């Protein structure tokens, strides 16, 4: 082979150059904002920064204080309850609605719009409206009582033990529509023949859903899970608008703790420690999943 024929292998960095250039915003966002911001946050969580970030390291003091704070513990508990229940309920309700919508029903468009429209509203609006509907003085409780059932009591937002369920009601109202859409899209993607096979086999509808269809919708459930879960971790506006964390501290959530301590208490170190804990939790859940989904040499498509 002549030398000339061997020549011409281009410099590696320049292969796919356009793609790399076009990805610069993404790379910057990923590396500078998300990764950089995270590292920055973690570093400053070991300092006693107050209003302004200062590199004055105090070890794990902030973390000790964090976990000693009842409000943080309550926030974590609330997030766990809210998170688990909202995952379960939005998946179950979303799936059931989608399954019903998939029965070749009339007025499908109307129903779909009805279920989806709350998603167009912000959490602030959602919180306000539900705060109002659940207000014992003129909301559901008052209405039922005025109908004659005077001992009726439905007062979630002012009862510490169940306030988080009040928040959940509003969250489900806002979010299940999207889940329904995702599920519906997934159901529409299922091979018709599977349904036919199940009918010929004499499998009742509910068993077909339970044992055949749902297991087949794994990718849809995963996508949905990511979307719901990322929303759950970030829940803030809804609580602020609906209860401000009350009564007392019984509906506090971690994101609100972070915000309050960073800006109201002007204790950035504490806020950063709290956010670091949140990030760690997220990472523990997300990284193995991301590895399975996107790493591990999975084939294209």
């Amino acid at each position: 082979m002549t030398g000339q024929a061997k020549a011409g292998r281009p410099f590696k960095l320049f292969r796919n150059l356009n793609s790399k250039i076009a990805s610069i915003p993404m790379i910057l966002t990923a590396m500078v904002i998300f990764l950089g911001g995270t590292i920055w946050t973690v570093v400053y969580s070991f300092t006693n920064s107050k209003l302004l970030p200062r590199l004055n390291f105090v070890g794990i003091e902030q973390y000790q204080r964090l976990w000693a704070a009842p409000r943080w513990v309550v926030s974590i508990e609330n997030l766990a309850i809210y998170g688990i229940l909202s995952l379960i309920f939005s998946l179950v309700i979303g799936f059931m609605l989608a399954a019903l919508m998939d029965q070749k029903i009339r007025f499908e468009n109307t129903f779909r719009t009805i279920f989806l429209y709350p998603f167009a509203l912000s959490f602030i609006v959602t919180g306000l409206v539900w705060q109002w509907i659940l207000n014992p003085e003129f909301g559901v409780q008052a209405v039922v009582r005025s109908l004659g059932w005077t001992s009726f009591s439905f007062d979630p937002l002012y009862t510490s033990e169940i306030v988080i369920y009040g928040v959940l009601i509003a969250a489900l109202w806002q979010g299940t529509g999207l889940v329904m859409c995702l599920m519906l899209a997934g159901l529409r993607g299922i091979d018709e023949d599977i349904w036919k096979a199940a009918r010929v086999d004499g499998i009742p509808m509910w068993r077909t859903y339970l044992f055949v269809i749902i297991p087949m919708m794994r990718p849809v459930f995963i996508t949905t899970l990511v979307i719901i879960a990322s929303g759950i971790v970030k829940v803030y506006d809804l609580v602020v608008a609906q209860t401000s964390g009350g009564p007392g501290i019984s509906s506090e959530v971690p994101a609100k703790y972070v915000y309050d301590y960073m800006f109201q208490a002007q204790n950035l170190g504490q806020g950063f420690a709290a956010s670091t804990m949140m990030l760690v939790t997220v990472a523990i859940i997300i990284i193995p999943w991301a590895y399975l989904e996107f790493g591990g040499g999975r084939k294209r498509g």
Partner: protein
Amino acid sequence: TDLEVTHWWTSGGEAAAVAELAKAFDATGNHWVDGAIAGSGSTARPIMISRITGGDPMGATQFNHGRQAEELVQAGLMKDLTDVATAGKWKDIIRPSTLLDSCTIDGKIYCAPVNIHSWQWLWLSNAAFQKAGVAVPKNWDEFVAAAPALEKAGIVPLAVGGQGWQASGAFNVLMIAIGGKDNYLKVFKDKDAAVAAGPEIAKVFKAADDARRMSKGSNVQDWNQATNLVITGKAGGQIMGDWAQGEFQVAKQVAGKDYTCLPGLGVNEIISTSGDAFYFPLQKDAEKAKAQDVLAATLLDPKTQVAFNLKKGSLPVRADVDISAANDCMKKGLEILAKGNIVTSSDQLASPDTTKQIEDLFAEFFANTTMTPDAAQKRFADIIAAAD
């Protein structure tokens, strides 16, 4: 010159008061660009701080007296007002002098106090007590005694909004009224955890327990909604700062006739002097910097002080103004102030961090009836021990 001023004065009385400031500033040939952010200082402060640290500062911004802006000043983000202050002889006219002290860092003055607010007031609805068939109480103990009668009449004895600062504020009021000024100072100024855990403060917690019991059923969030319960006679009373007076005024109620105010809960007539101050973030634009000076001077102008404070229901920061138009309650406050029965407010003594923790504690205490006063006191003492 246009000067953007951010603040969180959006309730009825507050907005009317701000309008006076704007009017006075506009009269100097400048223009007040209003940057109100509703929802109390906790919503607004983060935004203000982000703007200042983000390098896009407003012309002037409201903070409470105290340590909220301390670090911003230390970071050199705030304008030094010493010249304006010297020209206006602030040192001489502002009373109590502690107000100016908290604006002073390293001998330089960084803020212009505009009013004095005191927390130590119990507001009572005369109509509510009439309906319950008991006399309007003259002090805290009578009030506690009257509570069952109010409850029987379907009236919430004590209105407390759901936000933590209202509960912790009420507690501080009880602390001065029941625990006394010395203990108060030991706890907040000296951060003496032993006192905080001691029997004197235990009495205060006992009183707070009473207050908690009486506040059951006041399902509101905002302080002025709670005030509104008093105004409408749905609640017997409210422990709230003198800014509540603005609401009574807007509702066209007359002190002494429609409502009664008991400074120091009628027990111990001492008021704390906190209040609002304006800070002036450093501006690159020289024009703006000049306008800032003008605004600072305007804020302390006697006419402005009177007009503003009458609307706001607060006390002017200078003693030399004519405030004859003030109503009963304000006059009571002025008297106490003149007598010098004052203490420094707790947010001037404690850092926002400590304040926030105390707020969290009392938010929980007032909402959670299973939390005993003892347990709460123990946690309170812990916070004080760790306070900086």
